[in-house]
């Protein structure tokens, strides 16, 4: 187990390093710089500013400084908001984005699995058709369209829920619904097909032959196996939710990390772009790692506990 985790941990570091490097060079390929639209700054001031942020140094030096900032976890000050550091922006934005993301994943998982299991148990029945219709709609409607629809109907027309910002539980409902529907639909469909497949397995028949109750057979014997594929796609779904938060935060004016990230790119605020990207990718890679471990715990055939592992 320890060896496996260590190995995965090293992979994680390498992955984050590669992403960080790519971001750095791609960012430098972006046309424009943090200062060039401000015509008012004169030559001397601009040079001063560039020197201050080491933008006058050769790229290699900047790259090394950048790596250093990652290792020390100090991404330096923001260029555009001189009173803020990247760390303080992250510190403010991350809890909000995390709240949105965690609720989204939780709700998508619980409702998706429930919907999928019900649909499978009532295979070809009315519940099945309704559930799968919801699922198909959920998959085909992009979250930003759903978000605007929800705002239009529930916030503007009916006025039952607030349209924007993140100040109370009511404010959280629409963004979470908008973001969770897609993943929920995917999980529901996957759970359904995987559950149907699991229910035909011999060990389910064996469990019935033992005289176990239907509830016990489903919960103990079927669900764990049926959820295996769901766990495998959880990583991809997480990545989707994460990028989804950019859009949703923008639409609902939620002051999360996505907002700073998008602003950072628009304003060529290099430290902010680099800081948020590294943070996002490190976070995602960590999540994928946790998903892997969860999978290993669920499926004993993946030998985490033995030397080496997969």
């Amino acid at each position, binding site marked *: 187990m320890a060896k496996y985790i260590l190995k995965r941990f090293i992979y994680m570091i390498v992955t984050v390093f590669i992403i960080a490097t790519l971001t750095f060079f791609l960012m430098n390929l972006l046309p424009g710089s943090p200062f060039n639209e401000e015509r008012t700054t004169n030559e001397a001031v601009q040079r001063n500013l560039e020197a201050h942020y080491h933008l006058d140094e050769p790229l290699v030096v900047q790259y090394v400084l950048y790596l250093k900032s990652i290792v020390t976890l100090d991404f330096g000050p923001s260029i555009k908001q001189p009173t803020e550091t990247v760390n303080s922006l992250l510190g403010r934005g991350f809890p909000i984005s995390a709240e949105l993301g965690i609720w989204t994943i939780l709700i998508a998982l619980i409702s998706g699995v429930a919907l999928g299991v019900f649909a499978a148990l009532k295979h070809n029945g009315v519940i099945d058709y309704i559930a799968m219709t919801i699922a198909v709609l959920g998959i085909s409607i992009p979250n930003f369209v759903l978000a605007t629809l929800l705002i239009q109907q529930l916030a503007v027309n009916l006025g039952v829920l607030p349209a924007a910002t993140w100040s109370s539980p009511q404010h959280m409902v629409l963004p979470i619904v908008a973001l969770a529907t897609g993943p929920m639909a995917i999980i529901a469909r996957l759970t359904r097909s995987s559950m149907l497949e699991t229910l035909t*397995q*011999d*060990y389910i*028949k*064996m*469990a*019935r*032959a*033992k*005289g*176990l*109750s239907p509830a*016990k057979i489903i919960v*103990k*014997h079927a669900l*764990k*196996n049926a959820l295996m594929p769901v766990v495998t796609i959880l990583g991809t779904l997480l990545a989707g939710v994460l990028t989804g938060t950019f859009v949703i935060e923008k639409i609902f004016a939620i002051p999360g990390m996505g907002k700073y990230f998008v602003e950072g790119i628009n304003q060529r605020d290099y430290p902010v772009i680099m800081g948020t990207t590294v943070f996002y990718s490190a976070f995602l890679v960590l999540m994928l790692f946790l998903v892997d471990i969860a999978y290993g715990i*669920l*499926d*004993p*055939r993946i030998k985490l506990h033995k030397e080496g592992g997969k």
Partner: protein
Amino acid sequence: MEKILDIRDLHVSFKTFGGEVQAVRGVNLELYRGETLAIVGESGCGKSVTANSIMRLIPTPPGEIKDGSILFKGQDMTQLSDKEVRKIRGVDISMIFQDPMTALNPTLTVGDQLTEGLRQHRSISRKEADKQAMEMLTLVGIPNPVERMKQYPHEFSGGMRQRIVIAMALICDPELLIADEPTTALDVTIQAQILQLFQKIQKQTGVSIILITHDLGVVAKIADRIAVMYAGKVIETGTRKEIFYTPQHPYTRGLLHSVPRLDQKGEKLIPIDGTPPDLFSPPEGCPFAARCPMAMEVCTKVYPFHSKLSRTHDVDCWLQDERAKKYMASTY
């Protein structure tokens, strides 16, 4: 001898897109306490459906027990509620399936799967259940039961897994054990070991066994009586001796011919020509008529009468009719 199981005129059908498959069409079978009955027949003849019906394990829908009765110790399994059936499953009647690689849940430990039946049906402590499970593992020939209990199915070989499945089936000390091709998925040496295990267990516990197989070699080793099925019907039953030495039904004879024999060098396996009839619309007469070398005109029109040749030997074939016998005698 006490009759433990009595199946009368069992009909089971499956509704499919193509129509209704009449998988079992009037099966009669009986089983006495402590004996081993083998059910043999080609693939698709309804062996598994018959066996699954006994425990009410036919998936409904699409399947349905249309008619007939299954008397287990006098009570009709077809009339019981689901709850009543669950009290019998795994306790009085147990089942072993063909493929030990898929019959165990890959995500649960062997110990958990062994004890869950016990803990479901008997109110005993976990410790007591574990103890009984370990005794059972020892009985079926698995060493180190203490460690083995904590392992997962993938840590066992195919033969070992089948032993575990057998242990699972026996743990509540059932009176009837139904084994649906328990050795088909195993290699030959393991097959012999598993058959020996069945014999040993039967000697120790007195359990009655229904053994389904299409391997007559297996049958020859351990069956007391044999029922031959064809196209959803039992067409001949008899003791092992009667079936092997004086088979009466042309299909049974054909089957025996298709067994490769070790004692006769060079003899090839002769399969019976043709295929079994379509069970969507089974023929009115003898279902074997299209393949039968002895078929007569009456065979294609009317299903043969049931003939009793001895207390134990029954056959459904027109050749047993006096008129056919006379005719045969006059021509040969």
